[in-house]
């Protein structure tokens, strides 16, 4: 039982990280109708920026905010400058540009900061909360911050005109223009916000997995899987999906003997695909009902 609880909590803790990334994925999907393969590397890069700020002596929470702000601006600039020329060509062309961005960020990070792992501080106390032995305070913090970000995203999309406009612009750019929405800037804004959320994810992940250029690779994949499992159109669903993927992967590795740690990733992915076969819009995805 203790083992089970420990595994579950460990899964939940990582699930929080995946959930945060899944949220960033949903964010950019809501805003641009695309998945951005470079998102993980962008988050990693943001975390390195935060790391640099900390080594310069900037206090943690200032760093946190600054890194988010810098990432936001960076995201907007990337969209305006790099992605814009291929927008509206074809999806695959954009995918290739995303792959290009991924390679560039990964390589440049290694070039600037080297590949040795770097410890990244956690803002949360070291002692486990209430002396429990299952879950560290940082892990709880990750879950907490993820939920806060989720709530903020929910408020933003649901109740602000800009949030609404972003959703509209992603769904139907032509109609959005007709009501006066500056679609290009909505895309840029979406990139900026996604980059800022990615920065949060990166800064939460780094204390757990250590900062290095390949830090986010697999986490982004789990984030994608979580987002698709929960429903790419639904931020809350995506967060649930992230947690589900974390727990699922951990428990499969621990309790399915034939699979073991060796095949657990494959197995988890197969399971997710199986779910999607039966629920093609994800568990909580918005089913688009369209009258023709």
């Amino acid at each position, binding site marked *: 039982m203790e083992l089970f609880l420990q595994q579950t909590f460990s899964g939940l803790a990582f699930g929080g990280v995946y959930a945060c990334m899944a949220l960033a994925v949903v964010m950019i999907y809501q805003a641009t109708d695309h998945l951005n393969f470079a998102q993980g590397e962008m988050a990693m890069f943001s975390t390195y920026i935060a790391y640099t700020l900390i080594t310069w002596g900037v206090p943690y929470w200032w760093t946190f905010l600054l890194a988010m702000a810098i990432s936001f601006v960076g995201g907007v600039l990337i969209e305006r400058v790099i992605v814009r020329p291929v927008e509206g060509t074809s999806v*695959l062309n954009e995918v*290739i540009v995303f*792959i290009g*961005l991924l390679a560039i960020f990964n390589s440049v990070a290694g*070039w600037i900061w080297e590949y040795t792992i770097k410890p990244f501080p956690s803002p949360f106390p070291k002692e486990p909360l209430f002396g429990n032995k299952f879950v560290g305070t940082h892990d709880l913090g990750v879950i907490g911050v993820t939920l806060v970000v989720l709530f903020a995203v929910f408020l933003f999309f649901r109740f602000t005109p800009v949030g609404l406009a972003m959703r509209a612009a992603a769904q139907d750019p032509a109609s959005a223009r007709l009501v006066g929405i500056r679609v290009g800037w909505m895309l840029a804004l979406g990139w900026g916000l996604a980059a800022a959320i990615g920065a949060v994810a990166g800064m939460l992940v780094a204390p757990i997995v250590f900062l290095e250029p390949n830090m986010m690779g697999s986490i982004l994949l789990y984030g994608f899987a979580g987002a698709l499992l929960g429903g790419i159109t639904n931020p809350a669903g995506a967060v649930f999906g992230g947690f589900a993927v974390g727990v699922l992967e951990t428990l499969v590795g621990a309790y399915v003997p034939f699979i073991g740690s060796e095949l657990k990733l*494959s197995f988890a992915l197969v399971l997710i695909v199986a779910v999607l076969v039966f629920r093609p819009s994800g568990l909580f995805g918005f089913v688009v009902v369209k009258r023709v």
Partner: protein
Amino acid sequence: MGVQSQSTNSRLRDLAALASGAKLSRLQWSGIVAAVVFGLLLPLLVSDYRTFQFTLVLVYGIAVLGLNILTGFNGQFSLGHSAFYAIGAYTAAIMMDQWEFAYYWTLPAAGVICLVAGFLFGLPALRLEGLYLALATFALSIATPQFLKYDHLEKWTGGVQGVTIIKPDAPFGLQISQDNWLYYFTFVVMLLLFFCAWNLLRGRTGRALKAIRDNPIAARAMGINTALYKSLTFGVSALYTGVAGALGAIAIQFVAPDSFTFFLSVAILVGMVIGGIGSIPGSIFGGIVIVFIPNLAEKISQAAAWAAYGTLLILFMYFMPLGIWGFIRMGYARLTRRRKAT
């Protein structure tokens, strides 16, 4: 994505239609003859090492064509073609290493196994579209190296160590190097496969595939069995990629799980898009892209080779949004138009 993208897509479609057009013009015939003659002479002009590189170009070209059949002509995404490539490669390696088959027997075997594997994978994939299909195929390419390493399969796959095989000599006492022989062998296989693809895609089947890509509902209404077509396309696509895998294994003389990671899938995808989506000749340019772009990137900056690679990809998309083959066609069209105008 609005108006602009529609026009680009239709341009793409026109190009695809031209590329797989029912009848070849005289110009196209002479182009093909020139390309084949060039292909035959190539090994005589360059060193063995270059010949080996061009063999790889052909191998990857076949793999890109496989993906192109699926994505370019049928509109289904795949990030999982490294899996089929790996299955083909391991089929060849295991047949040659464990059962001592001659290398040429491994190609039909790899093709058939991949056809079946692709078809079976295509069945559940039917229910998935766009992103979800991308995730499913991505899962496939992540799982493949893990299965190749799996303890219980180690007897055949060699586990993490992989399998080493021997390069074939030229038959009938031909006095040409192994590299040249393998090049010609691959070249002939490639011509055969490209011809089959052209034949397949220009007729009824091709029209059905494109109808499914462009308007699945209408295709169904026209009486096309979309489920069967889509699964079969997956199978055929896997077959091509699997044969490429087998040829690749023979050329490299070694297979290991690390050779068939997710990055191979990405490379094939990049090759397809930069070579030219939905175009048969574009696939060969895709092979060229896969082999030579990383080398070019390394020349630009070794310290940050990936940064150079990424920059090249982005520049290609800026200046050749329809891929290299699309670029060539557009350039040609512009030239002839100008000539007509004057």
